[in-house]
């Protein structure tokens, strides 16, 4: 090697060193400060508003007003009933399906898993609207069929009721339980069941005495998540409960911002929601964190599948029947509504029309703006969020600097902040100088960034953990500086994780409603808000068109993410 190349190389190495070691502390501090501001500011104003009156004097009157006002205590009771029913229903329905898929020879198991994931990514408010189309008492497609078939004057099912609402929310929270339970079942090594078998337990007895108890924590954790979802969702109750004349906590908080606005009450009502969320998430982490119980050690290997025998066909029919509730029926209803003159119209050729498509894409002035806003926000949030999450994951996974734990906490904390609570907090923080962001896309960007950061961070942290530090060290000792190592070793190995994180954020932004509904203005409407508005005016055809487009975007991105991670996993990650 010539002296000249050595000199240039050394210069490059020194630059790498400056880019890496020397800057990591300032970068850590800056990131931590940014996150603290991002989360601390809205939460701080929320707390401040909750304990002050209009004049800014400290008081507890907001809480006492809420506690004594039936207009708030009734939604509270309603929400509690709703949450409990959803938790029970989701666990009761999803756990058996998870067991059938993970532990029996049920046909089409892989397809069922994919379909479950599909109901995962369906925006819940879209599901609620689809069920309006299906089961509104008069115009609902199913109710029309029922009346035609039975000759009865009464609807079969009224979706604008508390049970109706609980049903729709259960449809879209059951996948959470399913994923948790199915994963837990996947991890139970066959030898634990074999051990019961060799001691004389029959297959059913083994299932009841060994398998089910082992996944009980996962079922409970799933039920807690379902409870949480039911508590913090805004779209579904706003769509189904408000027409029926009752409130849940989230719709009540939203109503405090209708004229006359009462932000103090909204803040006071949001705080308990935050507290309960934190509490439930802690409980969930404990349930899943007891290692050696849910995450069972031991030799893995293909689990032994129970032969269903004659029950195979009925079981499959049952599972598909259940899956039709969040998927086949609503999707069919949306598609039909998109091309029918009115949703309940008989499905014949003269009723087919392009008028909704035409209305949405040509006549309706808000569509283009909303698409543009959504696209800008989704791209911006996904890119910014991925970079931010990447920096945090790098600092926490690779730098043993004191303080990286704080960063980890800050990056995960937003999980515990319901969208509507964050929306209230951001509204209170950014409607004032020095950062009067209300009315701009920036405030929505901040909201989405906060909401989506945890999932991106968790994705990238596990990606980093899968890349053994020795892979980077091997490159350093052979002569590559820190930056060169980052470019040639770390980045290629993280590629699929980064793409997945980006896609998660993108999808999350496209479907977000509960924070957006607090923060939008006429110029900053996004797709979900437009859909919500159209629902208020009862234009189901236009919603169906927009909703279908939204679903298409979502599934395209999901497909892309799956394809990329499939490409990435072709190379096995060694060295761990």
């Amino acid at each position, binding site marked *: 090697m010539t002296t000249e190349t050595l000199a240039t190389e*050394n210069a490059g*190495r020194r630059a790498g060193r400056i880019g890496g070691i020397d800057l990591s502390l300032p970068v850590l501090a800056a990131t931590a400060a940014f996150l603290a501001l991002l989360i601390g500011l809205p939460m701080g104003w929320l707390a401040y508003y909750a304990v002050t009156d209009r004049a800014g004097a400290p008081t507890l009157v907001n809480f006492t007003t809420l506690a004594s006002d039936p207009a708030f205590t009734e939604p509270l009771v309603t929400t509690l009933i709703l949450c409990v029913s959803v938790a029970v229903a989701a666990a009761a329905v999803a756990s058996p399906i998870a067991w059938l898929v993970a532990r029996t020879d049920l046909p089409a198991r892989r397809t069922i898993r994919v379909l479950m994931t599909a109901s995962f990514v369906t925006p819940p408010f879209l599901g609620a609207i689809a069920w309006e189309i299906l089961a509104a008492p008069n115009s609902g497609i199913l109710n029309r069929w029922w009346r035609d078939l039975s000759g009865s004057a009464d609807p079969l099912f009224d979706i604008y009721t508390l049970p109706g609402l609980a049903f729709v929310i259960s449809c879209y929270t059951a996948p959470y339980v399913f994923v948790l339970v199915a994963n837990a079942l996947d991890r139970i090594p066959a030898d634990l069941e074999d051990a019961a078998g060799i001691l004389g337990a029959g297959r059913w007895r083994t299932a009841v005495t060994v398998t089910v108890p082992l996944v009980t924590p996962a079922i409970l954790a799933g039920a807690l998540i379902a409870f949480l979802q039911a508590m913090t969702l805004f779209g579904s109750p706003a769509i189904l409960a408000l027409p029926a004349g009752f409130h849940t906590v989230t719709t009540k908080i939203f109503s405090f911002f209708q004229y006359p606005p009462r932000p103090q009450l909204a803040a006071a009502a949001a705080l308990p929601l935050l507290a309960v969320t934190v509490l439930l998430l802690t409980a969930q982490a404990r349930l899943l964190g007891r290692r050696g119980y849910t995450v069972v050690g031991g030799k893995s290997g293909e689990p032994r599948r129970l032969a269903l025998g004659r029950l195979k066909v009925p079981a499959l029919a049952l599972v598909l029947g259940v899956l039709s509730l969040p998927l086949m029926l609503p999707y069919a209803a949306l598609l039909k509504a998109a091309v029918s003159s009115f949703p309940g119209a008989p499905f014949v050729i003269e009723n087919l029309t392009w008028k909704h498509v035409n209305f949405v894409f040509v006549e309706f002035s808000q569509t283009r703006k909303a698409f543009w806003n959504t696209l800008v926000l989704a791209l911006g949030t996904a890119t910014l969020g991925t970079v931010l999450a990447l920096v945090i994951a790098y600092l926490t996974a690779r730098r043993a600097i004191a303080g990286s734990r704080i960063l980890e906490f800050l990056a995960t904390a937003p999980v515990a902040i319901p969208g509507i609570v964050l929306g209230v907090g951001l509204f209170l923080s950014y409607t004032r100088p020095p950062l009067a962001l209300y009315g701009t896309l920036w405030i929505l960007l901040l909201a989405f960034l906060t909401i989506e950061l945890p999932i991106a961070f968790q994705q990238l942290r596990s990606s980093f953990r899968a890349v053994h530090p020795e892979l980077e060290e091997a490159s350093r000792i052979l*002569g590559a500086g820190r930056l060169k190592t980052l470019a040639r070793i770390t980045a290629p190995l993280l590629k699929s994780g980064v793409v997945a994180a980006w896609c998660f954020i993108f999808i999350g932004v496209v479907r977000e409603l509960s924070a957006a509904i607090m923060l939008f203005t006429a110029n900053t409407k996004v797709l979900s808000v437009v859909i919500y508005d159209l629902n208020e005016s009862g234009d189901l055809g236009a919603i169906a068109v927009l909703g279908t487009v939204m679903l298409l975007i979502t599934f395209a991105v999901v497909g892309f993410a799956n394809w990329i991670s499939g490409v990435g996993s072709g190379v096995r990650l*060694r060295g761990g």
Partner: protein
Amino acid sequence: MAQLELRGLSKHYDGTAVVDRIDLAVPPGNLVCLLGPSGCGKTTTLRLIAGFVEPSTGDIRVDDKVLSAPGFATPPEQRGMSMIFQSYALWPHMTVADNVAYGLTLRRLPVAEIGRRVSEMLAAVKLGTFADRYPGELSGGQQQRAALARALIVEPEILLLDEPLSNLDAALRDEMRFEIRRLHDAFRYTTVYVTHDQVEAMTTADLIVVMNHGRIEQSGAPEEVYNRPRSAFVAGFLGGANILKGHAIDATRLNVGPGVLRCAESAFVPGDEAALSIRFHEVRVHATGGPDGDNRLAARVIRQTFLGSLRDLALELADGTVIRATAPPDLAVQANARVWIDLPPERCRPLPS
């Protein structure tokens, strides 16, 4: 070939010394083994040498040039070293040939030259036909050889190996031990080899450095360290030994309770608490006989196991002390049998306190 020197080297984490004032000089072209149980500081020492960790005290010199000192460490990429990692750390997104070529690419060698040297090196480690495979498609032993090739091809001043064989199965480990020594004899890089396996250390090393609690217990040629352990720890860790404690009567004799034992070497201070070590196979067991004899003690067999080429015995002395002995397979003694054991003075190594 470079001379490596560690002077008063320490590394503290949260106030505890993981590496504690180590002095070591590795002559050019020598292979030195850092041997010790897990947590003894050997891997940290290696990472200090590589420049991944900055020392708390002391310094590291190569050919009298200081590479590491407190608050200062030449980055790993400028040290002219290479390293083989416990996990091999082969990059899963590159083929074997790309992995091996990496160091040369960084040095901006002409492409043709790189190609030639890569195929030479792959042939040397018997991986010639695997150049286009990905690491995930290789067996453990092949990955190990690919890692060796990647480290050797850059012709390092110093080669570092971190438990390179611990992920291999027993048969492969045997083979690779000799392979590493063969490659060392061929290339003669100054090499630091970290292991917890004494057989590995004995096979490969010119110099064994036994470490414990962050310190060097003893260093020397394999035979010297084995034959003349200077502490109970070294005696026990290297080959296994019985340690008998007692108090010294004079410079050569130790009262161990059930009897007085004499060492050929004089090392004790009369009146002091001290100990001696004797290896399992050096204890002679007699099924018959009497109390007369040099360093002879009475014992009772509490367990005997036939291992084919020898018998493994556990023997209890009069005061309850249990010592282990290996005897020829034709010595037939039953459990509970009374026996006599000889501890030859020239095999009793004094361990002064």
